[in-house]
């Protein structure tokens, strides 16, 4: 019974992450439903080695990747170099970002970058937790996060000018 209660209490976070990954409300809830059905069916195999929520997130992420292999969304493989900065969108650096722009920009991120950025920025996971959930090395996670943030910056019209940080592969004058 306790596992079921823990599964139930994880539903809001699973829905939030799924919605941010997929945008579409119904498709996101389909993904959560699938994840919950898998988890409930396998609950007797759950060995209690770690938080139930992390197990659920791993199921959700695996199912999301299965779906995505089948139906890669547009925006896949957009290289940052190919993105045009639209000067009209340059905003006041002191103000918040326009939510619609951020939402559209998130949708254009490659899937691996979107998964990584959302698990950290939205779900508040630590880098170690996030790497574990996504089943990638921490270094890979860091480079995906850096690329996601840089791409998002360009796509929201706040692209880097002279203030680019030194880092692997990103050196500029």
């Amino acid at each position, binding site marked *: *019974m306790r596992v*079921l209660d823990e*599964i*139930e209490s994880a539903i*809001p976070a699973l*829905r*939030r992450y799924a*919605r*941010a990954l997929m945008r579409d409300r119904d498709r996101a*809830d*389909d993904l*959560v*439903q*699938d*994840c*919950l*059905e*898998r988890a*409930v*069916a*396998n*609950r007797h*195999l*759950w060995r209690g080695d770690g938080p139930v929520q992390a*197990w659920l997130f791993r*199921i959700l992420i*695996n*199912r999301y990747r*299965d*779906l995505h*292999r*089948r*139906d890669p969304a547009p925006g896949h493989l957009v290289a940052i170099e190919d993105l045009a900065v639209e000067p009209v969108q340059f905003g006041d*650096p002191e103000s*918040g*970002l326009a*939510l619609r722009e*951020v939402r559209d920009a*998130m949708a254009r991120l490659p899937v691996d970058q979107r998964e990584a*950025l959302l698990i*950290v*920025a*939205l779900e508040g996971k*630590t*880098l170690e937790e996030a790497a574990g959930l996504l089943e990638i090395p921490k270094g890979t996670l*860091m480079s995906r*996060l*850096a690329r996601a*943030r840089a791409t*998002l*910056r360009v796509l929201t019209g*706040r692209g*880097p000018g*002279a*203030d*680019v*940080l*030194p*880092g*692997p592969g990103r050196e500029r004058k």
Partner: protein
Amino acid sequence: MMTEKPALTEAELLTYAAGALPPEEAAAMKARLVDDPAASATLAEWQLQDAAIRDLYGPVAEEPVPDRLTAIIRRAKAGDAAEQARPKQGRFALIAATCAALAFGAGTGWFARDLATPSAGAQTLASNAIRAYETFVVEVAHPVEVSASEAEHLNTWMSKRLGHEIRPPDFAAAGFSLMGGRIVPSAEGAAALYMYEDPQGQRITLYIAPEGASPETAFQFAQQGETQSFYWMDRDLSYAVTGTVPREMLRQIALAAYDQLI
């Protein structure tokens, strides 16, 4: 930026932004940020990004959970309560019956045979198996037509359609449990597709087509994109174990299938 300290790297800044530094290192980082306007600007931008992402999607967690999701938990709790109320004997009898059903086929082993060049028929088999996997593994609502809980119906139906007595093998040792099966087309008529899943939600399929080969073939391997398949043929039937799990794991599962199916 005329400062003697090296500029902050992305990795350092990401670690700091994730709040992953111990307090004294975080304090040192803060001090370095004062002298590094570029890094400070980047950090401020990231914080704006995080705030926007939380504003966009944070409220989803406050929404009432749709009934179709809570219903899954409700049904499971009701099922557990019924299970506890039922005398224990019923469950043991079921497990014993499953063991008996799986016992035939034990005691045989896999004999390494010469690797042959796949025939055209075998290649069709692999490509049909991979296509069937890719079609149904993504299925959310109806991954299988008949679920494993209706084992007897599943076995009768599959055996009848294929014209051969077949039973799904057990992959519990590899952590995969049977979800159920469905009938799919093959070059020679109806084929069976069994789907299995591990606790992490990874899925594999076992495809059985009514197409035999003489002489019987050894294990062969095919790959298409990320999807891999081990397949082989015996006198009456062809088999393919397909998935995106690591190749060695898939091979072990295929061996287990071979041992149990012969």
